[in-house]
Structures are given as structure tokens and as C-alpha cells.
């Protein structure tokens, strides 16, 4: 009898051990973090190749995104200038406000639907999502530090080594896994549940108001050649005539071509209601001012977009009713589910 007991305990322990090792190997049945291409979206550019999306990788990326200790004076995280309630742009800041109260030269862009972008920044200088954060990390007016400093901080600061082990199988942190974790977090930020999306995907059950519908028609006639659906940008670079001579050379900094002087990336209009101020230098603090620029403020800059000069008339003439209708439509691009999604929240 006593022997039987021991056998039973042994068998049970072996069973338990087996179960343990089994659960370590098998992937969780339900991954709460997913990347799904919305049905009204094209194929993504970033495909998580060599960087399999996992819950642990995503949560590590999120922790890094919000950790102010990564910056030179331990005051600035990615999340400082990319705030969820502003579509991960920087509300009320014309340009980014980094370490030591230093002001950058451009407006922090929104962060979502990044997996569909092949180039990043206002001038398209960064050409792969994974390497994007290095610029903000090293810029003296943003986080003001360098990869080596961050990597050694992470290697010596609990619980980071364990979190890296959980995510990538090794507790030795290097810049590659740091950047991969951040990419798992940022690439997963998808905003595709605005009223506009619901109307597009299910017009039987959702509809625009009369104003929104008018605005949508106007938008398709006057704006969609650059801000094309469904991303609301054609991802190109152009000059919208903000200045006769742009102080910031924009895209030319990257290509060296004078035909790119003063051109900037056409931004998405999704969540535009929440992500003021607008333009590369944040000069406009309301959508009314933006539309008034197109109505009456367009300058004949040297590389002005051809669509902004028609039969020698500059800009896009808009009546005040049309402006209001356009704004009504633009507000249908606000995606509350994304803005309030706790998955992306600092918590």
C-alpha cells in the first residue's frame, strides 16, 4: 500500500512535469494580440517577417514605448509625444518637445496604420518600420540618448531581461530585439473602426448624415487625389503651398532633388479631429484654418502640387457651407475604439 502511494505520487509528478513542459512548447490557444488586415484595406507592407507577433513581444514593446527612463534625462518616452487620445500625435504641440525642454523642428505625426507605410517621417527618411525609433532615441531634441545606453540600461534593469527572455528567448538584450519589440507594438496599432469604415463595410446598417454625405462627395471631388481612401493618404510627397519659399526643405533633404524642395509626406486624415495641430510645422490649430488655407492661402511655391493650381487659380475654392460639410465628413474618420483601446493604453 505504501509503495503504491509512492508510485502514485511519482506517476502524478511525472504527469505534472510532462504537462508543464508541454504547455511551454504549445502556443497559447488564444492570442489576444492579433494583426488583422481590415477588409476595406489593401495588403500591409510590414508583415512581421522575422518578428513573429506574440503577446509577450507586444507587451514588452508597449512597456518600452511608455518608459521615460530610456531618455537622456529620464523625462521623455515615445508616448510623451505620441499620445493615444491624439491618435498618437502630440496634442497642442506644434513641434516635438524633447529632453531639456528642447524643441524639435517638426510636428510629431500620428501613429497608426504604420504597417501600410513603406516610408516614415514627414520627409520619408526612414525606410523600415523597425528602425524608425532610432531617430527619436538619438535626436538631441527628442530623447537625446543612444542605442548602447538604452541596451545597457535594459540589460541591468529588472524585469527587462526576463521580459526579453519571454519575448525573444534570450535575456541578453540587444538593439535588434529592442527595435523588434517596439515594432510589434507600433505595427499592431490599426485604426479602421471609424464611422466611415462602418458605413463602407456595412452600408445596410450604417449611414452618413446628410452633412457627412455631402462632405464625403466634396472630399472625393476635391481632396481624394492626395488623401486617397482607405488610408486617406496616397503616401506621396507634395507641396501644398504653405510658403512661397519653404524654410524646411522637406523631402529634398532625403533625395537631394530640387524638385522635392518643400515637399512633405501627405498625412493620413484618419483621426484628424483629434490630432491638432496640423501640417509639418504644426502651424494650423484647427480644421477650419486648414480648409481656409486651401480656400485662400495657397502660395505659388516652386513645387506646388498641380492639383492646387487650376486655370491659373490657386487652391481649392470652398464656400463656408462646403467647409462645414467637409469637417462633418472628416469627423467620421475618428476611431473611438482605437483611441480608447486599452491594449495600447499605458495603464
Amino acid at each position: 500500500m505504501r509503495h503504491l502511494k509512492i508510485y502514485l505520487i511519482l506517476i502524478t509528478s511525472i504527469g505534472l512535469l510532462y504537462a508543464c513542459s508541454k504547455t511551454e512548447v504549445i502556443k497559447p490557444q488564444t492570442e489576444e494580440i492579433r494583426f488583422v488586415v481590415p477588409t476595406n484595406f489593401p495588403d500591409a507592407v510590414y508583415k512581421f517577417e522575422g518578428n513573429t507577433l506574440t503577446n509577450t513581444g507586444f507587451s514588452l514593446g508597449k512597456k518600452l514605448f511608455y518608459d521615460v527612463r530610456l531618455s537622456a534625462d529620464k523625462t521623455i518616452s515615445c508616448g510623451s509625444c505620441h499620445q493615444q487620445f491624439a491618435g498618437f500625435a502630440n496634442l497642442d504641440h506644434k513641434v516635438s518637445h524633447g529632453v531639456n525642454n528642447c524643441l524639435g523642428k517638426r510636428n510629431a505625426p500620428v501613429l497608426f496604420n504604420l504597417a501600410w507605410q513603406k516610408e516614415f517621417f514627414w520627409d520619408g527618411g526612414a525606410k523600415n518600420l523597425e528602425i524608425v525609433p532610432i531617430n527619436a532615441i538619438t535626436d538631441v531634441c527628442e530623447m537625446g540618448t543612444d542605442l548602447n545606453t538604452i541596451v545597457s540600461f535594459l540589460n541591468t534593469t529588472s524585469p527587462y531581461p526576463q521580459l526579453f527572455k519571454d519575448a525573444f528567448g534570450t535575456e541578453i538584450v540587444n538593439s535588434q530585439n529592442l527595435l523588434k519589440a517596439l515594432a510589434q507594438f507600433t505595427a499592431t496599432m490599426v485604426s479602421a473602426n471609424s464611422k466611415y469604415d462602418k458605413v463602407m463595410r456595412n452600408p445596410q446598417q450604417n449611414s452618413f448624415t446628410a452633412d457627412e454625405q455631402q462632405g464625403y462627395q466634396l472630399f472625393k471631388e476635391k481632396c481624394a487625389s492626395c488623401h486617397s481612401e482607405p488610408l486617406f493618404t496616397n503616401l506621396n510627397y507634395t507641396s501644398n503651398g504653405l510658403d512661397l519659399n519653404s524654410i524646411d526643405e522637406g523631402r529634398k533633404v532625403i533625395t537631394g532633388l530640387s524638385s522635392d524642395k518643400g515637399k512633405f509626406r501627405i498625412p493620413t486624415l484618419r483621426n484628424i479631429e483629434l490630432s491638432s495641430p496640423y501640417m509639418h510645422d504644426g502651424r494650423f490649430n484647427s480644421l477650419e484654418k486648414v480648409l481656409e488655407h486651401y480656400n485662400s492661402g495657397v502660395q505659388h511655391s516652386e513645387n506646388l502640387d498641380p492639383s492646387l493650381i487650376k486655370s491659373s487659380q490657386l487652391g481649392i475654392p470652398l464656400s463656408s457651407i462646403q467647409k462645414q460639410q467637409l469637417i462633418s465628413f472628416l469627423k467620421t474618420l475618428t476611431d473611438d475604439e482605437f483611441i480608447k483601446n486599452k491594449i495600447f493604453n499605458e495603464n
Partner: protein
Amino acid sequence: MNIKNISILLFTLLTLGFTSCKKDEVINSKEKGSFTIEFENEVNGTPLVLNTQNYINANGDSFNISVFKYYVSNIKLTKTDGTIYSLPESYILVDASKPSSFLNIFKDIPSGDYTKISFIIGVDKERNLAGAQTGALDPALGMFWTWNSGYIFVKLEGTSPQSTATNKALTFHIGGIVDPNNTIRTFSTDFSTGNPLRIRADKSPQIHFTANAGSLFTGKQNISFANLNFTMGGANSVLIADNYAVNLFEFEHIHN
């Protein structure tokens, strides 16, 4: 012994000698071996000493060097029969301040006699556009541009009394993959057929190259530091790349 006998003896000896040599030469192509590439950094014939040594460029300008780093990648070896072996994942960063980077060992190379080597001075286009890399391509190594993303292929910094830049600085950061400012250059050299790179399971031959930092400033066009002392990509970087493509590297010899 008459002449005939001597001839026969000589013939026999020679034949034996050759046969025995040939026997040693049987190569099992399924075997793998290793080899090492050594880079010796110099400036126009004298060893490179960082910071303290003064050099004269082809234009007659005096200068010293505080940083000299370069990428060598995509190494290919060509056998006597013309077949080419491309070394997988061959990315080297040589840093004049780190002697450990001068010697680079490559393993698992198919046995054979190789008479030619070629490599990219810099990093191929694909990896310039790829996601986060590690090893020699780790962006933390200071050879990666973040504002216009891509690798710096060759980096030389120093000072020259002729430089008009702040603190008389010389800043040559060469990179870029988009025409017309593409600075990817390929170097290749033949080895002597009498002493090819002999890869065998039981040997580890060494190839010696010199890397001449002075080559950035001559070759196609002599550089005057009063006119050009700063470049980070663009047309002036192409000028420098066209210069060093000529004689940054020189094959010295092989120790088999």
C-alpha cells in the same frame, strides 16, 4: 652512369615527385574548411596611427585621422574552374580603433582552390532597407543613418589645417543606395594561380589586404580639404566612393 641512365633516373624521380604531389592535392569537395581575411590599415604606404600621426593627401594637404571604419560584405570566392561560392551572411565592420576587427574568420567553406575574391565595399541595398539588424550590422555601432535610414559604408573623421569647417574637422560619411548617389562599390582581385586560396578541412589559410585610408582623396579626383571637408551622402560622397573604389583595398598575399 651514362647520360641515358641519369635521364631515366631523373625522369623516374620527377615522376615520383609529381605523383606524390598530386596525391597530396586530391581535394574532397564535400569537406569544409575555413580561412581568415586580415586587413592592415594604412595611409599611402605607412601604417595608420589614429589621432597622433600626420599624413599628406594627394593634393598636398596635411591631415590626421581619428575615426576610420568600413564595411566589407557579400564576399564571393571563385574557383579555378570558374564556379563561384557566395559566403552567406558575410558582413564585416573593420574599425581602425579595434584591432580585433582586423582579423575575420570564415568557416564552412567548401574545399577547393580559389583564385579570385570579390566583395562589396559597404552593405547591399537589401540590408539597407531591411528591419533591425544585429552583429556587424547592429545600428548601435554608429554606422547607421537614422534621419535618412541606411548604412554608412565608409567613415573617416579627422582634422586638417586646410579644412574650412568648424575645428578644422574632416567628416567623410560615405553611403547611399539610390541613383545617382548610389555609393555601393565592388572590389575584386585575382590571386596568383601558383598560390591560390587553398581551402581544406585541416588548414586555415589567411588572405592579407591593405586598406588605404588615403585612397578616399585620390584615384579619380584629388580632394582638396579647403573645397571638400564634409559629406554625408549625396554627390560628394559619390566622388569619394569613386576614389576609394580604385585602391582602398590592395591584395598583398596568401598564407596557405
